[in-house]
């Protein structure tokens, strides 16, 4: 060890230095306080022996300065003194001394003290190192969580969570609490929302959330149905999550065009569909959480509810009803129902629930581990207006091609070919920004071919709430009898000077129906208010396609869709836009 000895008496210093050297330590000598402080800063000794009374700067002041220099390091400081007055010895310790050594020096006691302080010093160093390590590890962990959060955000992004008709409350690091909330626009219009709550917290929950985000956004973008997405999430989680870990979740699939909401709830608290007039329908958990059942036992069957603009849909994680007040009482699902019962006119369920939970918990920022999401049903036109996609840069890719894809037999019941067909079309550079229109074209043709062609379901049924349920029951039943049937898509794409032309031919094996009359009937169905379940699709097809031809008995439909790379919105010429932009620069 390096030992600093500060002592003004030359003979005393000689003696003490000799003693300490004899014990095998390296000695540095100072003869007053100022020298001692300077030498301390210079050689950084492990232990200091300091005379209390010294000229220039006394031991007390030197002790204070040395302790300040040592900072967090423990440098034992032993006062040397011939003081016999107890209160003066106490003053030495108050000044920062750890002990004292009384003259005449005793070698045995000196050695024992140096050894004792060396043990203390070593222990302090070990503890400090461990504390620093813990601190560093904690800093690293927090830093890693932030990075992980950024990575997660890149995978999960916010989707369309910021849309005007979606309100949500989630903690910034909610993914580490096991909560996830995703929202995506369907290619054919409408909104898809998934709220999940993983069992467990921290890293395992966050890791489990990653593939769920990828599956959700990837499949939603490609036009897969909500049920398909749920099946895939369940399959994936079943594989990756350890036993005992799973994900409670709810899926909302809102189709503003059809005025239809499909819901699925597996393990989350009751969600609610709240009508504009206050009437409400429960969205109760009817399924086990995701990741529990093997794929063959998993049920993705969704509840279908007719909705109108102004309706509000609420889903939440169990952190919401489980929030407790200072007395330890939980808000409870009864609390949620009570808030919804007492909704004031003009008050949204989301704001009412958040206000009540803040008041109940007494925390203005609400709790960290609850997620609440509300979706407002809006008009299709309003949805389209807020959903203008930015144009993509021109890319190389397939522009001139033809393909035929035929779905047959039982596959008609088991498989939805729309994502695949949409995917093929989206390979055309520039066409992606028209994905909504292309999806609508394809899905209208496909649904007509399947429901009215192959399954022979009359669309009038869907015009009343009773018939609506009957329609879907019958659809399900008839899908078991698709033997001998097919639906065939022939797609062709060609480039044009300003964009491209997509030709779609859809044929089916059904008996066909009087298309012309069907159209007329649809046009006559001018329901003044309320949802219109059918007919809108064909009107839209006629509007979007340059050409719509129905051959034979109505089971052979051909349409031509022209699209342009530059958007010409509201009569504004493309060149005009360009000029404006340059002028602004």
């Amino acid at each position: 060890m390096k030992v600093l000895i500060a002592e003004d008496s030359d003979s005393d210093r000689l003696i003490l230095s000799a003693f300490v050297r004899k014990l095998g330590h390296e000695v540095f000598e100072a003869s007053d306080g100022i020298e001692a402080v300077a030498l301390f800063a210079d050689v950084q000794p492990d232990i200091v022996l300091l005379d209390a009374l010294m000229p220039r700067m006394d031991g007390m002041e030197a002790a204070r300065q040395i302790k300040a220099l040592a900072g967090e390091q423990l440098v034992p400081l032993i006062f040397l003194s011939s003081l016999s007055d107890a209160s003066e010895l106490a003053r030495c310790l108050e000044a920062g001394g750890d002990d004292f050594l009384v003259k005449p020096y005793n070698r045995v006691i000196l050695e024992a003290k140096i050894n004792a302080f060396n043990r203390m010093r070593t222990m302090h160093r070990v503890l400090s190192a461990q504390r620093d390590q813990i601190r560093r590890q904690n800093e690293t962990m927090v830093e890693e969580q932030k990075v992980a959060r950024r990575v997660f955000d890149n995978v999960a992004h916010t989707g369309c969570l910021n849309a005007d008709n979606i309100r949500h409350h989630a903690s910034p690091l909610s993914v580490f609490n096991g909560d996830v909330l995703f929202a995506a626009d369907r290619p054919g219009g409408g909104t898809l929302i998934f709220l999940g709550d993983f069992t467990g917290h921290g890293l395992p929950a966050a890791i489990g959330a990653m593939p769920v985000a990828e599956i959700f956004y990837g499949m939603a973008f490609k036009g897969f149905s909500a049920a398909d997405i749920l099946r895939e999430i369940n399959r994936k989680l079943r594989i990756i999550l350890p036993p005992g870990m799973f994900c409670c979740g709810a899926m909302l699939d809102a189709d503003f065009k059809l005025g239809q909401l499909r819901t699925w709830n597996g393990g989350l608290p009751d969600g609610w569909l709240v009508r504009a007039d206050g009437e409400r329908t429960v969205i109760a958990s009817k399924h086990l959480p995701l990741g529990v059942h093997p794929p063959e036992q998993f049920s993705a069957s969704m509840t279908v509810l007719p909705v109108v603009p102004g309706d509000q849909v609420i889903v939440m994680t169990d952190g919401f009803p489980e929030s407790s007040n200072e007395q330890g009482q939980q808000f409870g699902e009864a609390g949620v129902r009570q808030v919804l019962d007492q909704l004031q006119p003009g008050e949204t369920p989301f704001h009412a629930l958040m206000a009540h939970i803040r008041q109940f918990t007494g925390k203005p920022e609400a709790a960290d581990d609850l997620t609440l999401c509300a979706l407002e049903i809006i008009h299709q036109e309003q949805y389209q207006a807020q959903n203008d996609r930015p144009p993509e840069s021109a890319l190389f890719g397939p522009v001139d091609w033809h393909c035929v894809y035929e779905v047959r037999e039982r596959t008609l019941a088991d498989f939805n070919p729309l994502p695949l067909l949409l995917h093929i079309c989206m390979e055309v550079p520039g066409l992606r920004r028209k994905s909504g229109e292309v999806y609508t074209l394809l899905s209208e043709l496909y649904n007509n071919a399947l429901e009215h062609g192959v399954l022979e379901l009359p669309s009038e049924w869907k015009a009343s709430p009773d018939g609506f349920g009957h329609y879907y029951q019958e659809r399900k039943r008839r899908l078991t009898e698709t033997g001998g049937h097919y639906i065939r898509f022939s797609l062709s794409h060609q480039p044009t000077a300003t964009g491209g032309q997509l030709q779609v031919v859809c044929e089916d094996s059904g008996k066909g129906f009087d298309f012309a009359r069907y159209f007329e009937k649809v046009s006559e169905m001018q329901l003044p208010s309320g949802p219109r379940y059918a007919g809108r699709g064909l009107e839209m097809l006629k509007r979007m396609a340059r050409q719509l031809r129905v051959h034979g008995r109505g089971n052979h439909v051909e349409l031509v869709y022209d699209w342009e790379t530059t958007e010409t919105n509201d009569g504004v010429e493309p060149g005009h836009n360009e000029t404006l932009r340059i002028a602004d620069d």
Partner: protein
Amino acid sequence: MTDKTHLDEEALAELQDVMEDEFDVLIQTYLADSRTRLDSLRQTLEAADADAFAKSAHSFKGSCVNIGAPYLGVLCMEAEQLGKAGNLAAAPAIVDAIESEFAEVSARLAVFGGAS
């Protein structure tokens, strides 16, 4: 060892053992230091600076007990106490006593050193 012991030969023998070749240097240093402190006692007494007198006596006391001159240490302590009390009336007598005891210690140390 009584209060009147001039030299603690046992302590000195231990110092000699530890200091080895430096023992003579130690003795010379002690003697030189002590003369300085004795001068300082006289000067502060003349100046009637009780506080400085006490401090000089205190330092002198420390080196005396360390070197193994206990009686000289006792005398120094008495001087220190007078200084602290601020009453230097009895101090000249004590300083005289210190001076004569120091002469005694010096002589004995010379003998001790010579014997070694």
